[in-house]
């Protein structure tokens, strides 16, 4: 994605939006607005400030959930990846978590934690954390053995080997896990607003659907996707800042 020229990105955007516009004009369904209708609805939502108050609400569980998932997820991942005992203890939990049908768990969460922020944060975490944990532990466990041995041969301490060999070696896969986790976290945040209490962007979606204002509904969905893409790009920037060299590709030997 990084090396693809800007032109290609624009071209693919034009194709996708063009297809959307055409599909809206046919129309595929009376509930499917055209691209331009959706964009003008988005402009309207932006101008009267609705979208900002909505995101102020939606971003709370999303950001809190993603930060918790990233910090805790990488922490647990490193831990389970380095110790087979904790791997045995934790991995099954996250494998189950990843496979569990979230919608079925939500009533349970509401029963225990109510309909407030806690439940929504938990939904985000359930969505985001497993893939972060599993990727991190897998990556750490697969650090090339000779690199660790080299660290020992040159008198590295456990901590040196962890910080200068294991984590940099695992970073591409850890970040791949973070990207997947963040995407899943976005889904979780919206899902929680649709299933727990309609607030923020989830509220715009629910409300505009109920009054058949489909352009606004699609405008809200579109804005989420844009935000998610921006967020993923930010993550890529962070990765490059921290582990620039890693993107240079691997020696295959």
């Amino acid at each position: 994605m990084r090396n693809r020229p800007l032109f290609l990105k624009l071209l693919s955007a034009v194709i996708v939006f063009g297809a959307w516009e055409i599909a809206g004009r046919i129309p595929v369904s009376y509930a499917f607005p055209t691209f331009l209708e959706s964009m003008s609805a988005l402009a309207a939502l932006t101008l009267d400030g609705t979208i900002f108050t909505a995101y102020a609400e939606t971003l709370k569980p999303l950001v809190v959930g993603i930060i918790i998932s990233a910090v805790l997820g990488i922490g647990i991942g490193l831990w389970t990846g380095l110790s087979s005992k904790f791997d045995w203890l934790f991995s099954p939990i996250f494998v189950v978590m990843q496979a569990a049908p979230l919608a079925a768990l939500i009533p349970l969460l509401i029963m225990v934690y109510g309909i407030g922020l806690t439940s929504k944060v938990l939904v985000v975490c359930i969505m985001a954390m497993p893939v972060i944990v599993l990727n991190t532990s897998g990556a750490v466990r697969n650090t090339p053995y000779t690199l660790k041995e080299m660290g020992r041969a040159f008198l590295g301490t456990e901590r040196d080997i962890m910080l200068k060999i294991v984590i940099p070696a695992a970073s591409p896969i850890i970040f791949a896990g973070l990207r997947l986790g963040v995407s899943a976290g976005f889904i979780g945040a919206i899902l929680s607003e649709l299933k727990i209490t309609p607030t923020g962007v989830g509220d715009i979606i629910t409300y505009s659907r109920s009054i058949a204002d489909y352009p606004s509904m699609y405008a809200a969905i579109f804005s989420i996707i844009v935000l998610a893409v921006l967020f993923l790009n930010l993550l890529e920037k962070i990765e490059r800042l921290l582990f620039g060299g890693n993107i240079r590709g691997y020696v295959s030997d």
Partner: protein
Amino acid sequence: MAMSQTRVAPKRGDEHDVEYAVSVRDVSKNYGDVEALKDLSLDFPRGQLTSILGPSGCGKTTLLKIIAGLLSPTSGEVEVNGKAVTGPGPDRAFVFQDFALLPWASVIRNVAFGLELRGVARSERESIAQKYIQNVGLGGFENSFPHELSGGMRQRVGLARALSVDAQVLLMDEPFSAVDEQTRRKFQEDLLSLVQQESRTFIFVTHSIEEAVYVSDQIAILLPRPSRVSEIIKPTGIRNKGTDDIRRDPEYLDIVDRIWASLRSYVE
């Protein structure tokens, strides 16, 4: 870097301490049911190059890693400068058979990595690394990354990294296996002059008979598993010849033949 310029002063004590940098005593190593080494004893004279020669899978890497302190022997012990080895130490540096370079680090950072782990300040370690990058002929590639180098160049990065930490004993695991024959000969000549300049003890694993005879002060021939030293050969007569003349020397050819004769029965 003072150590590399002057010969290590012989320590007082019994004869072994003075003469041998490394002594391996009755070392056995089992991997589960596989007996890799059995009661292997071998002494490595200080300041000389000893080759360990043997067929693939006979335990050369295992022996080298035991000396490095990366593996612990099942029984027996290893002494370096008269002190028993319990783990890796500053007196030994390792050149890995599969390079073990950090793929995300530039050549200079890789070469300086051993010093980085020892807490040497950046400017100091990079100037030391710079010197050895020149020494192994990689000048100009300081900022390249391992995937941009050929196999032989990567191997030289590993060699420069081991030289930079200024250890008295260099453990080299088939350092020339990744290069073509021409480059290999060049490396062998470089190694000979390195041994003369550096007054360090080199332990050199190879499975090339010619290479072993060409570069070594002493050759230890290992037999297939469970390995012991079957023979020690000291090609002293050819050591003082010029690098160009060695390969034509009758003694060189003689020794190559002799080693081949004793190994051929194990190669089917």
